[in-house]
């Protein structure tokens, strides 16, 4: 009896601790969201979202920063998604398991652990200076793209590897070539996983400040870019600027900017999640 009671008590304590930890994890997220929403919602209006900043950013809107971030994320994905997926296809479907391919895989894993400011310096050295793109949307997008490449490659590899081997064997046994097999019987079933990786990449690319600091971000630029060789403002950097570099910015503007950045990432993610669930519905094995 005593043992049984002990076991029951232990069970209760264990589940209480586990629940407590889970709540501790969720709480900061909820609090952050709540505070940003509470303090920032007052600043959100049509003018804030669509107007140029005025009077040294103390008034007006943040439209150039929103647009800039969209350009940068779009550019990064445009560059990293095809390159990442094709690399993953090569590694999973074509590369033999030898020293070289193991080195490549190790390099990709390590690339994911490189601090983002290092990517920023790399972008400055390679794209801005060596290739002469200047401080521009192009240089910033490529830098962000390289930063999210490992995320996309790793997710795509896992997605490709999770497609049952039998699909490949059956397809090849029906006379399909290797590329036809990948195109028709492997890639379609790996798409949900690839999109998951892209979602993660988008979130990172939209939120990072360091990689764009030296490569694209403008301190204050109250007009829209004319080409990919122009500088743009970007939300994370703009937030940094108005929070620490410029005095006299109203608090609601700062939190409003944070709220817009957060919403932007969530909306982009939502879009990808919907796309992914559409593909998942087609999964039939």
């Amino acid at each position, binding site marked *: 009896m005593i043992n049984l009671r002990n076991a029951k008590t232990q069970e209760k304590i264990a589940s209480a601790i586990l629940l407590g930890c889970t709540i501790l994890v969720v709480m900061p997220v909820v609090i952050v969201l709540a505070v940003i929403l509470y303090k920032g919602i007052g600043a959100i209006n049509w003018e804030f979202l669509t107007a140029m900043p005025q009077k040294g950013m103390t008034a007006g809107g943040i439209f150039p920063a929103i647009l800039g971030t969209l350009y940068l994320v779009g550019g990064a994905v445009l560059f990293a998604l095809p390159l990442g997926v094709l690399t993953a296809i090569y590694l999973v479907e074509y590369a*033999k*398991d030898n020293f070289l391919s193991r080195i490549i895989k190790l390099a990709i894993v390590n690339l994911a652990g490189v601090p983002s400011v290092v990517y920023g310096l790399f972008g400055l050295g390679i794209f801005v200076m060596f290739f002469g793109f200047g401080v521009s949307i192009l240089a910033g997008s490529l830098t962000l793209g390289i930063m999210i490449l490992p995320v996309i490659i790793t997710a795509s590899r896992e997605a490709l590897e999770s497609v049952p081997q*039998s*699909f*490949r*064997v*059956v*397809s*090849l*046994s*029906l*006379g*399909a*070539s290797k590329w*036809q097999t990948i195109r*028709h*019987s492997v890639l379609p*079933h790996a798409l949900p996983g690839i999109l998951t990786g892209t979602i993660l990449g988008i979130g990172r690319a939209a939120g990072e400040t360091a990689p764009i600091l030296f490569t694209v971000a403008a301190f204050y630029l109250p007009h829209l870019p004319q080409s990919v060789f122009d500088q743009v403002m970007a939300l994370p950097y703009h937030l940094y600027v108005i929070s620490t570099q410029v005095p006299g910015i109203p608090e609601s503007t700062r939190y409003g900017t944070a709220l817009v950045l957060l919403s932007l990432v969530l909306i982009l993610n939502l879009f990808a999640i919907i796309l992914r669930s559409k593909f998942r519905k*087609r*999964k*039939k*094995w």
Partner: protein
Amino acid sequence: MVTQPLKPNKIKFDIRHLKARYGNTEAIKDLSLQINANDIFTIIGPANSGKSTFLNSLNRLNDLNPNFKLTGTILMDDIDIYHNYNAELLRKKVGIIFALPTPLPLSIFDNVAYGPRMSGIKNKSTLMETVEKSLKESYLWDEVKDRLNTSAFNLSGGQQQRMCMARILAMNPEVILFDEPTSGLDPISTAKVEEAMLILKEKYTIILVTNNVAQASRVGDKTAFFLMGELVEVDDTKTIFQNPNEKRTEDYITGKFG
């Protein structure tokens, strides 16, 4: 003038000194045999005797395994399939049915049309004709004609296996390899598959690997007995089952081992 027999015993496969290994494991040791066109050639033997390796060598599906090594020659219609043949073309001519049904996650129509589509056929009505003809040949048409666009996973195991047959037939092959095709099926579905094989051999050469000795005796024209990667004996199915040369063959078919 001497009249030719309707079906001369033309040699489809001529296999000479075939040896196969996976890494350091020898799967087939020096095997030579011939397979006649329009026969049902059955291969019996216990597990690990090299039956499936042999079968997968005939359409080069073993190529997918990087550790696989093969020496010797396999001639199909006098052409060396390992040196003078494109693997994709070979696999279009030599289809294979696996032990377990292997539908692709597509509709019934798309499954059957897969091979022709990969050969570049895009015309809808041509594809439809091929699919209908193939499903009729594998006795599945009446059961699925109203739901061709539903998932192949909704079919029963026996139906899936016949759909896999239709998928092979749609490629208009010359040879069909069966790798223990009924091991996962109930007796009625098994009978249907066997019945189909007997009709199919009019047009195709059939090579059947089976664990079921009785099945080999029911449908086979010739039967080969494999043991530990060696060909013990090959002869007319009747001879193998009634009057085998080798003691080991007799022991196996009478169930004394294996």
